[in-house]
């Protein structure tokens, strides 16, 4: 498979396709978040699936997940969710800034530490979203929904991280960045 990917990269522009995998997974996360089904039942907010590839590739391949892509994924999230424009985009960009500043600390984590690292990023995203909404609506919003969203996103990162790691090793990892 790896040889096939490398061959594709050399011959048919497959490298470009491979490089778009992180962004495509971010967009897939947006789509899954806004699907009309929930595996968590009625009143638990949808997890922030889109944040997972942003966090993952911001750490391991920031050239494939630039701030611009995080912003674009956030804008698509705003469009699909039907909410006020720019709020998800600003939340993802703020989270990206946190990850970017603490990249050395986050990248050194492994195992449960990596989960805690993601939980920190999810906390930053939820906090940014909460503050932006409070300013946007100009009132104090209920905080319980944000806590639930943070909790369910952090827990779900455990299985998703294995999937992202597999995809990275299998497809994205072989084509190293030239920067």
């Amino acid at each position, binding site marked *: 498979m790896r040889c096939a990917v490398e061959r594709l990269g050399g011959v048919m522009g497959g490298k470009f396709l491979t490089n778009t995998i992180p962004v495509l997974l971010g967009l897939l996360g947006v789509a899954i978040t806004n699907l*009309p089904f929930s595996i968590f039942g009625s009143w638990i907010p949808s997890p922030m699936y889109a944040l997972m590839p942003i966090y993952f590739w911001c750490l391991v391949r920031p050239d494939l997940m630039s701030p611009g892509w995080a912003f674009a994924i956030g804008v698509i999230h705003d469009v699909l969710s039907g909410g006020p424009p720019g709020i998800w985009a600003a939340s993802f960009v703020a989270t990206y800034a946190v990850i970017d500043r603490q990249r050395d600390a986050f990248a050194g984590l492994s195992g449960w530490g990596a989960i805690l690292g993601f939980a920190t990023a999810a906390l930053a995203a939820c906090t940014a979203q909460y503050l932006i909404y409070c300013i946007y609506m100009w009132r104090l919003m209920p905080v319980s929904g944000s806590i639930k969203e943070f909790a369910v996103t952090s827990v779900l990162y455990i299985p998703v991280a294995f999937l992202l790691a597999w995809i990275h090793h299998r497809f994205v990892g072989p084509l190293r960045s030239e920067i």
Partner: protein
Amino acid sequence: MGNGTWRISRSRGGAHLPLVIVAALAVALILIGKAQSSLFDRARAGIVDWMRPALVATRTPMEALNRWVGSVGEIFVVYQENLRLKEENARLRQWHNTALVLQDRIKRYQLLLHAVPDPSISSSVARVIGRASHPFLQTMILDAGTADGIKPGQAVVDQRGMIGRVFLTGQRTSWVILLTDLNSRIPVSIEPNTDQAIMAGDNSPMPVIETLARGVQLHEGDQVVTSGDGDILPAGIPIGVIVADGPRYRVNLFADQTTAQDVQILDFKQPPEHPPAVSPGELPVTAAGLPPAVAQTNQGLPPPQLQPVAPKPVYKPPSVAPPVQPAPGTADDNSDSVPDNGDR
């Protein structure tokens, strides 16, 4: 997981400049969206119309998976569920017969009273192809838009009750703001006393009853329906029942908006009610005996259309026959006949 095992491909400094730029872009987007929300709404409708096939395609396998996962759990309770459904079916048949009898009776009463018939309500059925369940947002995307006759403001219901109302329409898609959303405000009527109130969403499963008249006491189980105020929604759509929550009242919704997959969009066709035209006699200026002001047509407003009014009826006392002049000599007779106690 395993983040520490991979080499970091790029130094941190390179990403700083674009981060500042996209942060500024994000802030600008929020400000523009706040100032010109219609601009963003049009763009949103166009993008989602374009994405509709992808959303429908994504929905199909997920729906199958959801149904399969659900059916696995239901295998273990299918016998009990069957018994419960049989019992419920028997009860519903009784109610069905009762409803038919009552419906006929209401029709007879309406004929007797020459009652105004209810406004006609047609509906369209649409599928839910997207749902946002976020801490500050509860919306749905439906696969029907202006091409199907959907308009903003229309009520969205499922077989149990109201779910929300359409707030944005594209060519083939439309957005629904759910009753539980923070921005949802619906005028409601609470049975049996038809107490008027506003039901407001707060992103919790049960919306809050607001602006209830002072002194009104509600009871748990009172039914909440749409009031129809403002001619936006039809009156009488069932919403839920009252539940006490400390000093406040909440509404336990009939419809489960998080599991609804196929919904009805009600087209409320009642024409807007205009107040009757004002007659000159009813104008306060005329009533005060002052001359009427000249119509100000220079503001682009047409002069008010006054109805010709018949002159006010003047009270006339009933005609009385003129008093008959007594014949000479008769008065003396009369005076004699009437005893005058003062003189005598």
